[in-house]
């Protein structure tokens, strides 16, 4: 008779939001392995209905404090696509600079605050601050720098409300850009230190081939601002055919929709981008990947953490370049005109820190949003996380249940899920023969 496992870990910490992991192992057979998202859906698409289209970025950026620039970016792109607006080159650069700030902020927060405790044997960032204060101070400095990028671009550290159809409502002065440039250049040693921190760390062995998706920029830059959707299986779709690339579906155990590609579960986010576009990284980021030992063909989801460090370097260097380009002509750019005033359908795609974010709006002739559809990266990764767990758990059976639960938490954290966006913490619950222990309680997070 094989092993039966019943482990119950409430509130898997260090992820954004609330959810449960439920594992049912009976006589060595994995009966159930689910990632439950138990929060009430936020229905932000409904919030958009009937609102003037230009308000959409200001509403959607409030969905989440961590992904706010990404939502604003995909949202404004959908509005501009529907209204036939093509923003000018400086506007596009300023928006990309803000995305660099958000990538930098989000990735630093994830790897240094949420993952580093695992790597350095601390239960959370508070004891880590006691045992490794230098790590946490480094992270706070880098995060502060990321805040400055977003503050310079949009006047706010998060949740930018300066995105307007065809342009930006705030334009940084030359003095503000010069100050930001100094801060960014001075931080190179800190960014290198972050790479050193994660060099040589051993990650759990888990290899599972999975389709990777990312929207590659039209201009050959590292994927960030959206474009055709590329698959590691060799297919490509234009943005308006996103539903051919990603199919959402409902599952009983999750308030968040799951998603699949043409061959089952899919991965999006830093690891998928790295796999599909590693050759587009700048030399410093490629050097970091080399130092970290990150193989472009890796199928180990724990390497999401390494890909995020590489993308931190990329976002930092890109930010420096973009500020330099903006300083060549820092005067504000005129807003681009509307060319399709009757409205229509618009598609906005952004590669946000956790993956590909889709916003799809139908805008009526009165300029108001009639329908909206948003597909969130975390929802796209949920099925892949469950498939990973199904492969991972049988390899862990010789470990104490507490250690199995810890490894599963690490796996979920590697994807850096933002459950707040997909519908909010994680409980890990092992069942024994389909029965929850009395000690399990009702569970369900917040």
């Amino acid at each position, binding site marked *: 008779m094989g092993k039966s496992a019943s482990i119950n870990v409430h509130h898997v910490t260090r992820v954004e939001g609330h959810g449960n992991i439920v594992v049912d192992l009976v006589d060595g057979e994995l009966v159930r392995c689910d990632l439950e998202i138990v929060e009430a859906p936020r229905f*932000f698409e409904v919030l958009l209905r009937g609102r003037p289209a230009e308000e959409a970025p200001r509403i959607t950026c409030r969905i989440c*404090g*961590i992904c*706010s620039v990404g939502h604003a970016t995909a949202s404004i792109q959908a509005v501009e696509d529907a209204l036939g607006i093509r923003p000018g080159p400086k506007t596009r650069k300023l928006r990309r600079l803000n995305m660099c700030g958000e990538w930098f902020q989000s990735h630093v927060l994830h790897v240094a605050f949420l993952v580093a405790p695992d790597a350095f044997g601390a239960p959370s960032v508070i004891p880590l601050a006691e045992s490794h204060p230098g790590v946490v101070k480094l992270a706070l400095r880098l995060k*502060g720098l990321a*805040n400055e990028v977003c503050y310079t671009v949009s006047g706010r*550290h998060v949740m930018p409300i300066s995105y307007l159809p065809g342009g930006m409502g705030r334009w940084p002065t030359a003095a503000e850009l010069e100050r930001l440039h100094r801060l960014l250049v001075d931080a190179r040693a800190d960014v290198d230190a972050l790479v050193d921190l994660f060099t040589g760390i051993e990650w759990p062995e888990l290899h599972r081939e999975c389709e990777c998706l990312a929207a590659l920029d039209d201009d050959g830059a590292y994927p960030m601002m959206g474009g055709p959707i590329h698959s590691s299986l060799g297919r490509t779709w234009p943005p308006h055919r996103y539903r051919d690339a990603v199919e959402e579906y409902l599952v009983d155990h999750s308030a968040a929709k799951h998603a699949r590609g043409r061959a089952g579960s899919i991965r999006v986010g830093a690891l998928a981008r790295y796999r599909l576009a590693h050759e587009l990284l700048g030399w410093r980021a490629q050097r970091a990947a080399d130092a970290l030992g990150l193989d472009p063909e890796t199928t180990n989801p724990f390497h999401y953490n390494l890909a995020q460090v590489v993308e931190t370097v990329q976002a930092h260097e890109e930010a420096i370049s973009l500020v330099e380009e903006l300083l060549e002509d820092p005067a504000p750019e005129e807003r681009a005109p509307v060319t399709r005033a009757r409205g229509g359908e618009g598609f906005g795609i952004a590669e946000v820190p956790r993956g590909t974010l889709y916003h799809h709006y139908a805008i009526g002739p009165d300029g108001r949003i009639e329908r909206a559809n948003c597909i969130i990266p975390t929802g796209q990764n949920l099925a892949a996380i469950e498939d990973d767990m199904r492969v991972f758990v049988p390899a862990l059976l010789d470990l104490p249940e507490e250690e199995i639960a810890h490894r599963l938490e690490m796996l979920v954290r590697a994807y850096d899920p933002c459950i707040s966006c997909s519908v909010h913490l994680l409980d890990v619950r092992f069942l024994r023969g389909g029965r929850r222990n009395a000690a399990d309680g009702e569970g369900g997070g917040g």
Partner: protein
Amino acid sequence: MSARHRRVLVAGIGNPLAGDDGIGEVVARTLAADLLPPGVEVRYPGTDPLAVLGWLGEGARVLVIDACRHGGMPGEAILFRLDDPDWRDREAPLSLHGIDLETAARLGRELGVPLRNALVLGIEPASVEPGRGLSRELLSAVPRLVEMARQATWALLQEEDEVKR
């Protein structure tokens, strides 16, 4: 201009899309609409209390305005120092964000951040369910809360003046 050159930052924390969690931003924005004394700047760090640690580390004094379950009636506010050892023991989590203000303060304490230089105006929410706008209880409390924020800002400015003297 770096925060270290300013004296007092007023930080309206929260998410206006989450009901009364937006009260921090509303109070800060209303305060900013008035003529503020030189050396006072209003910031909107969204749902990121960690930003406060950075500003304190740069030498600023900070007034944090945030929704906070302290056990009072909706709209009731408490004012306390971020280094106050008692507030961690309150029944409910103090803040409503992923990395909450309490965790940020514990982190700051470990790292030697001068938490005493921050005052927190914690406002009891009625509802933080996703939706738009403040509850009736908090809407009616805004003028009183803005006045409390104004007085707290002046208190921080006076502390700064005393240190410089």
